[in-house]
């Protein structure tokens, strides 16, 4: 023990004082000259994309990054817009975390001074970051967040995909009318807001059609054993089973369901689109999904996109990539019509958008969502790979 203890008073304020000093310094160093909104000064058009390039959403993040990059490259190669100005795309990773998404978007807007933001795939990350874009009056286009509330954040937030309630309606109608199912079961991923939202929508629409829906059963993403819940579902003998989560689990669920002798049709949403769906193998027979995009749509726009994507990334584009591609095209179109990159003008142009996209006609409605039909595709497993075969188109309303 040291001497001189009695000559020192307890330094209660020591750390507070230091922290105060540090805080003052920090605030001072973070000051900058007050700046208005990024003004249009010519030169490159800087846009930002935030996505989950690492973490549990990495697969989707990668797809959306590729779709975005392809679109930007095409536009720049064709001479850019607004008199030869090219896009400069800045990409930030959010590690699949909502807080990081906010960090990324704040940085893009206030450090990199982007004039528009693209992202995110997952609704919960879009919901976290959208308020920032709204506050700074920077237009944000989400390629594939399907939760209704994303565009409700404000008038600067737009999307190019359809929303959960619509997908639910499409799936419910198909099951009821085309598959003639009267009693269905639903498996939802409690950890994914996409899945929860889609489930609610399917349930309400199917009931409205007059069908019976068994109590939805939950699992979590990352789970690998679903036999327990599937056995329970099996005992209730549904005509069809909806699996509203993402493809990694969908693949295994279909397999385990078939292993349990469940042969009824199984249905899912666009979340099923992903490489790892291959895991399902033969179990994928007799399954269907609702989707934005169909690879075998003969429309030249779609086929050109497919060819370019395959040439650039050596794999087949999924719907997430296609939507990301459309988001960039939408933005470029709006800027061209607005004749400017200024936030308010681009926002107004976006609100009136109506152009053909790879994923359908992108006509913006009053809620800043697009009204476009969804396709039902039959999932098939051919030659060791998954192929989506067009089955039907269901229109909104």
């Amino acid at each position, binding site marked *: *023990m*040291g*001497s*001189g*203890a009695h*000559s*020192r008073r*307890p*330094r*209660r*304020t*020591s*750390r*507070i*004082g*230091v*922290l*105060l000093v540090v*805080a*003052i310094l920090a*605030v001072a*160093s*973070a*000051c*900058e*000259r*007050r700046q208005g909104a990024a003004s249009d000064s010519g030169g490159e058009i800087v846009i930002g994309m935030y996505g989950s*390039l*690492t973490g549990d959403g990495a697969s989707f993040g990668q797809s959306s990054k590729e779709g975005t990059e392809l679109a930007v490259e095409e536009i720049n190669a064709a001479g850019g817009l607004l008199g030869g100005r090219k896009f400069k795309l800045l*990409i*930030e*990773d959010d590690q699949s*975390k*909502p*807080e990081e998404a*906010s*960090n990324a*978007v*704040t*940085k893009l807007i*206030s*450090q990199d001074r982007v004039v528009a933001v693209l992202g995110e795939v997952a*609704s*919960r990350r879009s*919901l*976290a*970051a959208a*308020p*920032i874009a709204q*506050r*700074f009056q920077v237009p944000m286009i989400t390629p594939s967040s399907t939760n209704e*509330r994303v565009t409700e954040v404000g008038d600067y937030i737009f999307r190019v995909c359809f929303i959960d309630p619509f997908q639910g309606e499409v799936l419910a109608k198909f099951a009821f009318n085309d598959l003639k199912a009267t009693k269905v079961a639903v498996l939802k*991923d*409690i*950890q*994914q*807001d996409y*899945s*929860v939202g889609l489930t609610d929508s399917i349930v309400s629409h199917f009931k409205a059609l007059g069908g019976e829906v068994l109590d939805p059963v939950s699992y*979590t993403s990352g789970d690998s054993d679903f036999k327990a819940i599937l056995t329970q579902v099996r005992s209730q003998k549904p005509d069809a089973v909806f699996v509203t989560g993402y493809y990694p689990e969908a693949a295994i669920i279909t397999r385990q369901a078939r292993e349990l002798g469940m042969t009824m049709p199984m249905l899912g949403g666009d979340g099923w689109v992903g490489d790892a769906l291959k895991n399902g193998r033969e179990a994928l027979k007799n399954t269907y999904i609702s989707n934005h995009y169909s690879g075998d749509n003969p429309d030249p726009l779609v086929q050109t996109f497919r060819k370019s994507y395959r040439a650039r990334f050596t794999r087949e584009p999924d719907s997430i990539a296609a939507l990301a591609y459309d988001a960039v095209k939408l933005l470029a179109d709006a800027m061209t019509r607005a004749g400017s990159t200024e936030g308010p003008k681009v926002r107004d142009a976006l609100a009136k958008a109506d152009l053909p996209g790879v994923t359908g006609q992108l006509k913006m409605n009053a809620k800043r969502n697009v009204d476009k039909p969804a396709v039902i595709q039959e999932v098939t497993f051919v030659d060791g790979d998954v192929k989506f075969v067009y089955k039907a188109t269901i229109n909104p309303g």
Partner: protein
Amino acid sequence: MRLPRKLLAIGLGTAVLVALNQVFEHGFGNFQINPYYARIINLIGINVTLAVSLNLINGLAGQFSIGHAGFMAVGGYTATYFTVYHGQALAALAGSTLNDAVGGSLAMVVSLTLGASAAALAGLVVGIPSLRLRGDYLAIVTLGFSEIIRVLILNIPAVGGATGFTDAIPITNFFWIFAMAMVTIVVVRNIATSTFGHALATIRGDEIAAEAMGINTTRHKVLAFVISAALAGVAGGLSGQLFANPLNPQNLNFVKSIEVIVMIVLGGIGSITGATVGATILTVLPEALRSFDRQFPGLRMVVYALLLILMMIFRPQGLLGRWELTWSWLGSRLWRRPAAGPAGTAGLDR
């Protein structure tokens, strides 16, 4: 310290914070805070609260808790829930709304108090049974507890479930974050220098000997645990009600708890200054490394892990060990006068 001087110190501190807050939120003449830096500074403040509160139980008491994220979640969700569903009513009582300083502060105070209480209760529930057990078991139990909390929250639609608590009303600001950070530091420091704190240090040294000397180890450990949990709850309430920072059960998990542990391990388990330094470094570093991250995605977390391992092998006491920053040390350094007392190695040991 005499009472008037203490009051003076508190008053001065508050005044400085309010002034800083004004600059922060509204700028100063022709200057404003860069929003990106502002966000980072706010996050530093919250992480300091988290790290220092964890230090109480991991550093001072020498117990190993990996469930801090769970307490943050409990406190955060409770606080945010209150503000979202009852905040306006409360603000109206004071004739104000949540958007202005009076209403917002009132809501902040009440919600944080509720959050801290809920987290404290959780700490009690977890602490009483598990603090009877040996080190490694406590670690697993706290981990398990935070996972259970996470699963429970996922199943509550009223707080957003998997989407996160996006309905949160952003009443957190610089003032509250740093005021709470300072409160945390003061509380932990006071505990450290009190009899209670010395008992904790004894328990850390040798639990059986402490028990043999008559210290009721379980009661001491539980109390420290509860206080630590309450402060984590405060951090949660601040975090969840920060603009564009919704609470999300996926991110209040094991990994988050580990991140807080890395902060105190880096800075020095057992040192408040160390915890503060660690928290700051680990908040700023990932942002500063964004360009590195873009070049080598995913490497960041690998570096975290390596850091942890290397630290344990080569410098288990962290950057600062148990050293604390004190005025006398600063004084001796700045004015080169002989130190008033043994500075430098004076840490929580005393």
